[in-house]
């Protein structure tokens, strides 16, 4: 288990960054928050690029900074690599030379240069000038360059923000592949919860420089539903149910893929790409895409019907004028979040512990990656 202990303070222009949190960096940890919430500043502090922080950062039992002891490891000695939002490639060097720049400075190099080139699909671009690359290609080079320093921790600062959807998907897949192959802890900053939902194992949520939640990715996204419900002006996320379910059938012969939810099934349109039986699929369903019925719909074009019990009904505490509630329904042990009007709630007399059916279209089951 790789632990990153943060106890840092930084007086910033618009807010104070104040974080006291230990992170278990197994797999990919997402850092989520609105613009200006302190996400990038946090990464820069871990990398050693924020000179004015006070407090301590301990990574894997090694003190990176402790201002009470006047101790600070220089950024180049931390064995932590940061991939910036804007690639920051060296324009006077080719792709290969940019990568070699990192490889040459790596102490105890274990990775094979050619393997990383292949892993990041840069074989054909190795001799190109970095100035001739597309944004997606530049980020792949930046990622490969960071990997060749063989860091103990990889920090990604919104690496997809300048990319189109196709490049985003490609790079996200690559990040997952890298994490799985190299077993490298990754801290991934993004203001898109959809991106994080697809790749992260856990998530840290920041707001105004403070941690407001940290834990398992699905759990924290579900917590965000309630935060968004009580703070609609924050526009944090679209309320949703975040799922990771095994595939039981990649194609049912009708162009639909089947996921298992214990004894129930969820259908979604067949996805492009190679999938195996029992492979976990990350997907999400927006709360506004699910509706509630009191009896199982028999004659409907909507293919997904799940039986469950209402667990909670939460109304917006700030903005009463929205006339809507967030209903939590537990189906086979899994929480689903449904956004309905107070009119519907009253019409169906919905209350806690009431057995209901959820229904949603196959197309409402979304995946960001495919």
């Amino acid at each position, binding site marked *: 288990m790789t632990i990153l202990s943060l106890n840092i303070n930084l007086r910033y222009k618009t807010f104070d960054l104040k974080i006291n949190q230990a992170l278990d960096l197994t797999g990919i940890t997402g850092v989520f928050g609105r613009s200006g919430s302190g996400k990038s500043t946090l990464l820069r502090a871990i*990398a*050693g*690029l924020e000179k004015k922080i006070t407090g301590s950062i301990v990574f894997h039992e090694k003190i990176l900074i402790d201002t009470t002891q006047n101790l600070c490891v*220089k*950024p*180049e000695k931390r064995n*932590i*690599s*940061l991939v*910036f939002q*804007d690639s*920051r*490639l*060296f*324009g*006077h060097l080719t792709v290969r030379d940019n990568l070699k*720049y*990192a490889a040459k*400075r*790596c*102490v105890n190099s274990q990775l094979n240069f050619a393997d990383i080139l292949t892993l990041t699909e840069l074989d054909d671009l190795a001799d190109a000038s970095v100035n001739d690359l597309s944004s997606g290609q530049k980020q792949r080079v930046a990622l490969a*360059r*960071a990997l060749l*320093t063989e860091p103990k921790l990889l920090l990604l600062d919104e690496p997809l923000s300048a990319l189109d959807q196709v490049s985003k998907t490609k790079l996200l897949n690559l990040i997952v592949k890298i994490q799985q192959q190299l077993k490298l802890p990754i801290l991934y900053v993004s203001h898109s919860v959809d991106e994080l939902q697809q790749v992260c194992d856990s998530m840290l949520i920041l707001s105004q420089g403070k941690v407001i939640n940290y834990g398992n990715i699905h759990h924290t996204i579900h917590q965000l539903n309630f935060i968004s419900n009580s703070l609609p002006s924050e526009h944090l996320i679209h309320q949703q149910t975040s799922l990771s379910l095994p595939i039981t059938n990649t194609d049912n012969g009708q162009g639909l893929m089947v996921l298992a939810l214990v004894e129930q099934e969820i259908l979604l349109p067949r996805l492009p790409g190679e999938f195996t039986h029992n492979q976990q699929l990350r997907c999400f369903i927006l709360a506004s895409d699910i509706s509630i019925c009191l009896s199982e719909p028999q004659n409907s074009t909507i293919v997904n019907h799940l039986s469950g019990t209402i667990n909670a009904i939460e109304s917006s505490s700030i903005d009463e004028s929205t006339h809507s509630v967030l209903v939590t329904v537990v189906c086979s042990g899994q929480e689903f979040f449904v956004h309905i009007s107070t009119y519907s709630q009253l019409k169906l007399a919905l209350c806690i512990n009431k057995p209901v059916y959820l229904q949603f279209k196959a197309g409402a089951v979304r995946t960001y990656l495919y």
Partner: protein
Amino acid sequence: MASPDLLALAVTLKMAALTTVILLLIGTPLAWFLAKMTSRFKVIIEAIVALPLVLPPTVLGFYLLIAFSPQHLPGKIWQQATGQQLAFSFSAIVIGSVLYSLPFVVQPLQKAFEQLGDSLLEAGSMLGAGPIDRFFTIVLPLTKTSFITAASLGFAHTVGEFGVILMIGGNIPGETRVLSIALFDHVEAFDYAKAHVLAISLLVGSMILLGCVYLLNLPRRITRKTS
């Protein structure tokens, strides 16, 4: 060119080359310091560095002459260390030239360092490169043309120097008699033919040097325009 003039040319080239090397060694860290400085004292240092641009050379030369005399501390220290007088020596005209040409080297370098910013240096540190490593592998290659511009301007300006040298170096053949002073001597002696040779040589030399500097900056300026 007559042999005293060739001697003056040799002194000039030696002085300008030495001055340029010293200027690059002093000017680079000074320009870096100014580019990264955020304190309000930055403007004061910048004004001091830029002073030779507006100050009459004779004023600078006058104060240096006083400072270099054995009666004053800098001249006294020099004499104790070397056993020779500083004023009216080759060393004096090199020191004077360094001070007089300082803005021609510091300003282009400072501008280049400011334009480069910190982003690529941060990227370098994330790849394990220390400060010296980053300077030679990132800063230097990316600001190469500014270094060439700074060195060329420093060299050309030193070659054309007159007032400061006359004040602190006098006119000692083989020691402090440089081309601009030799030219002045020929004019004073009404030897216009020799004056013409020196004047045209200085003119053409300066033109070629500046032409090379602009040629070097040309591709970058065109690229910027097209982009």
